[in-house]
């Protein structure tokens, strides 16, 4: 037995340990360096590190979302922002999915006009920046009539003079759907005072806005619409390539057993395509959620937008940015983990 004496650096384990140590040292040094820089800057600007400022009175208003008054705290403002982000993201994901599937079907429908339009739409939206689209959508909403001349669908009645009568005698309108530069208002079920059940509440045009109903602000509408049509274009392509990935033999076999085209698509092709579609679809959902941060360019008070206002008022940009990043990471990583678990299960079941 002549033991080969190896140079310690030749030893795999030692080298592995050294390499890892180097990485750890690098990461720690980087983090420490950044932290030191940030703290030094805060000291220079007489800012107190920490999150105590979140309890201070905000002083500004927020246009929509859960009730918020200027006397509420900065922390509450961020919570309202988060609620607004989640609202637009969840509604957007549902609508974008439906829209994306519809466009994909239009593309493969064989209908020349419809297919061509779908294609043109997909190309146009995928090849221009979302932020530009959002700003354009918002500006298009300004082409709607003013509040006093709101478009009413399913009009129920027009009254004379708004509350207080100071509105210059402008007539009020009540309808199932009202559209104007102030946004849209639709009939919605609401818990009215005294009644133990949900009653349908029809919107009415008031002096400054809508009374009752479910009100969608122009900013929310533009952001939602922009996110849905943009993400929908990507989802359509995901769905189309998923469907195309299903072997043609499956479709022919379905026809052979007498299924109609629609049935074949619904019963045979789509279930198989879903296995291909789900992972990239998850990515698109996450993209939509992240893209909702572009709300700041059109004035919808989402988490990032509110955080910028808080940062401007308090100077605590680093702390606020840290909170925002942590929230987005939680949403993204949480969704990824859930969807990974789902697709792992789907794979086992599918085989």
């Amino acid at each position, binding site marked *: 037995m002549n033991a080969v004496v190896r140079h310690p650096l030749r030893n*795999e384990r030692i080298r592995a340990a050294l390499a890892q140590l*180097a990485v750890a040292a690098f990461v720690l040094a980087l983090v420490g360096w950044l932290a030191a820089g940030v703290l030094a800057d805060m000291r220079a600007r007489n800012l107190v590190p920490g999150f105590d400022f979140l309890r201070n009175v905000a002083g*500004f*208003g927020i*246009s929509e979302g859960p009730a918020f008054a*200027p006397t509420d705290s900065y922390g509450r403002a961020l919570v309202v922002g988060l609620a607004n982000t989640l609202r637009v993201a969840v509604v957007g994901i549902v609508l974008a999915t439906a829209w994306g599937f519809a466009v994909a079907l239009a593309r493969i429908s064989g209908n020349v006009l419809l297919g061509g339009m779908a294609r043109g739409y997909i190309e146009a939206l995928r090849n221009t920046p979302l932020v530009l689209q959002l700003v354009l959508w918002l*500006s298009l909403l300004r082409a709607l009539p003013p509040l006093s001349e709101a478009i009413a669908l399913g009009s129920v009645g027009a009254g004379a003079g708004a509350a207080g009568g100071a509105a210059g005698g402008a007539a009020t309108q009540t309808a199932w759907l009202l559209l104007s530069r102030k946004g849209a208002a639709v009939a919605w079920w609401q818990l009215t005072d005294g009644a133990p059940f949900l009653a349908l509440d029809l919107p009415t045009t008031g002096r400054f806005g809508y009374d009752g109903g479910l009100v969608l602000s122009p900013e929310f509408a533009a952001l939602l619409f922009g996110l849905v049509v943009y993400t929908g274009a990507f989802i359509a392509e995901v769905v189309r390539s998923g469907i195309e990935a299903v072997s043609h033999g499956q479709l022919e076999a379905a026809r052979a057993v007498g299924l109609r085209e629609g049935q074949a698509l619904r019963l045979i092709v789509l279930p198989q395509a879903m296995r291909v579609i789900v992972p990239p679809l998850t990515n698109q959902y996450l993209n939509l959620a992240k893209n909702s941060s572009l709300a700041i360019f059109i004035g919808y008070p989402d988490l990032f*937008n509110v955080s*910028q206002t808080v*940062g401007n008022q308090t100077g605590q940009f680093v702390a606020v940015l840290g909170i925002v990043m942590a929230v987005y990471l939680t949403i993204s990583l949480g969704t990824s983990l859930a969807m990974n678990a789902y697709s792992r299960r789907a794979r086992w079941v599918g085989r």
Partner: protein
Amino acid sequence: MRIRRFTTALTNGTLALGLLAVAACTAANPDAPADAPVADAPGDPGASTSITTTGATTSSVPADTGVTTAGASADASAAPAPASSGGLLATVRQRGRLNCGVQDKLPGFGYLDPSGEYKGFDVDFCRAIAAAVLGDATAVDFKPLTAQQRFTALQTGEVDVLVRNTTFTLARDTQNGLDFSPTTFYDGQGMMVRADLNVDSLAGLDGANICVGSGTTTEKNLGDAMRKAGAAFTPVVLEDTDQVFSAYDGGRCDAVTSDKSQLASRQTTLADPTAHVILDLTLSKEPLGPAVLQGDAQWADVVNWVVYGVIAAEEFGITSRNVDTFLTSEDPEIRRLLGVEDALGEGLGLTNDFMVGVIRAVGNYAEIYDRNLGPDTPFKLPRGANRLWTEGGLLYSPPFR
């Protein structure tokens, strides 16, 4: 083996980082030589005309500006050394260019014109400072800054002076470690509403949608004022002034709040100017002026006295066109202002005739105002509080002696 793979990775990584670092280092060097032909060109294709073209009729700088200012700058280098060599004044001199933080999306105050030049009221004060310090009103590198970036840019030395529609407040003076120069524009936050609403107070706006710009004190002032008035409201917060006013003009909001100068100047550009009224109330005082970093008294003095100088020039009636005739004036105060007598400029670390260069380049306060906001511009903004003290305004320069 895997470690070797890792070493490859590490080498690649270091290579990439190294290249980044090289790029950063070559680029981080802000000291572009003053006389670099290319560096100079973009700032001033036709230096002497650049400043005067907007006003069309207001002022026309004599064609010989270039020659005289060149002389001034030669004097500057020959002038006695500045009091403290470590100060910003010396740094700017050495660099040959002034880094000025401005706003690039505020019509009338700071914007980019089609030829790629910055124009506006604030921008002209940058040029005035450059004319005073460097003898060349075109030796300015403009840095457009967002509201969030502006103080950090000053603190890190990215800009030498901030002339970006910044309100002088106690917190900014102390917390952000700034020093404010004399107010160049007395403003106040106001409120414009649609005339057909028949509103004359904030309380009348209970429940209204109000458009407001983000990233400033405006949002908070609005919250405070409406709270005081006991009125609920929905703020529609938009990023820059163009968006704020197009949202208001488009009927998104019932009212818009902003600095009164903005309200008045923008009213004329709305689809139907007569359909809007500016309420006769002030939500807050907004004195706007240049700011410098605290702790460099010499540099702060330079900026202060350039501002006072253009005000004083208006008091004496000295304009960019007639400044040469004043060089032979008998009035001792004019003689001191223009550096014909005494050595006031040297005390600041400048040349004695620094105000001559400033006035030649940008004119007096009235000329700056009229060129950017006055009757010949789309804004037609009345002087209001920004008249001389002798005419009932707030502009007042301490004596030059």
